[in-house]
């Protein structure tokens, strides 16, 4: 079930997420081994253990790092170089909201992305306030981002991404650290979105409703297919490893 080695023609791949023999090495160690993938489904899940390379894959798709070999295209654009073009193509929800929030107040955080998309400060602030009002959170506008709870900060990060209306949204462990009601609310919200969602998680439950699930291990695709098949195999393997002493190996 591993990916084919032949290059995907640029033709067939003008939309969606395309990786063509993309390799990532960090300080000499190969993290992702020449991945070739074409993701066009609406709901895509990526599972793997800690250190499997799934976060590196997400950073590669988001254009936060460039491949050391091969190429990556998102809707036909190179995510690592065409940063302005990527704003409309792809948004990313980081695992830790504190790694995402750049501004001292809620409305500035929301407005920043819109300014980056070329709107004026006044226009961006007005749109930010309208979005907050539509969510019943108008009073959040001038609030300091540091005063929000963890769940509220997570929610703000999602709103920030949604306001920029990207065609694809990458979610890194979207439910980690959230209490159960917040998880429920967030998963309902995500399920209703028209965008393509790529969810990365170590938890098979987080991607059980996906159209397609990839299982990454040691920087390679171990399995790729429907969640029923891939997740059953993933769960069985995780249970098998858990029976043994799971974490004695050091990376590298």
């Amino acid at each position, binding site marked *: 079930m591993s990916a084919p080695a032949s290059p995907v023609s640029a033709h067939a791949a003008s939309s969606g997420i395309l990786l063509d023999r993309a390799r990532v090495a960090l300080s000499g160690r190969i993290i992702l081994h020449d991945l070739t993938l074409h993701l066009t489904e609406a709901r895509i899940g990526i599972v793997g253990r800690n250190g499997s390379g799934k976060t590196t894959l997400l950073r590669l798709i988001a254009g936060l790092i460039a491949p050391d070999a091969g190429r990556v295209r998102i809707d036909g654009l190179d995510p690592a170089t065409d940063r302005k073009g990527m704003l409309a193509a792809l948004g990313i929800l980081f695992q830790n909201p504190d790694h995402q929030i750049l501004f001292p107040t809620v409305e500035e955080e929301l407005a*920043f992305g819109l300014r980056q998309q070329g709107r004026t400060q006044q226009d961006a602030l007005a749109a930010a306030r309208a979005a907050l009002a539509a969510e019943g959170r108008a009073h959040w506008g001038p609030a300091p981002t540091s005063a929000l709870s963890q769940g509220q900060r997570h929610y703000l990060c999602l709103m920030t991404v949604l306001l920029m209306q990207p065609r694809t949204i990458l979610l890194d462990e979207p439910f980690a650290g959230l209490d159960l009601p917040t998880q429920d609310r967030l998963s309902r919200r995500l399920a209703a979105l028209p965008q393509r969602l790529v969810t990365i998680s170590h938890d098979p439950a987080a991607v059980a409703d996906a159209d397609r699930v990839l299982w990454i291990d040691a920087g390679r695709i171990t399995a790729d297919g429907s969640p029923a098949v891939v997740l059953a195999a993933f769960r069985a393997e995780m249970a098998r490893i858990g029976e043994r002493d799971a974490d004695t190996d050091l990376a590298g």
Partner: protein
Amino acid sequence: MLTLTSPVDTAAHRLPAGVKLAALSLWTLLLFQLASPLPLTLALFAVAGVHLGLGGAAFAAHGARMVRPLWPFVLIVSLWHGWTGDLAGGAVVILRMLAAVAAANLVTMTTRLSDMVAVIERLARPLARLGLSPRRLALALALVVRFIPVMLDRMDRITDAWRARSPRPARWRVLVPATLAALDDADHAADALRARGGAD
């Protein structure tokens, strides 16, 4: 600027930031024209009156709390002028400082950071010819204000982690891990900035 947020919403919140900053500049210039204790006392009363008029007693009390960090300067100036016997000169320096800082705090308390930053961006526009992008300058200011509480919180957690495993207080020992944590935070902030189109 972090704790300088007003507990009450006032009419001054709706004035343009540029107007408030210009008024503050004029006010400070005026304070330096006044050279005797009596007019400066009146000026200080005027600042207090503006606080009261805008937001009532709670607002004025908040404003008074905001000038409290000046006490070491008041003490040093008092001691020096007490020593040299120039009491009127000392009173002039102290009153002028209090009236200027209270007025500056009033502007900060009633102005959103992004509005302040927009004024700085406008004023810094000529610097663009020297290669300094006003937008980058503004962004840098916002990042400082955003990350000071994050870093203080990080220091607290490192101190906790130290105390959980040591009978001695951590003190300066948190500095190295806190510096490394700050560098790590900077990497994450750079990622977040890049994810939303970068700083150009």
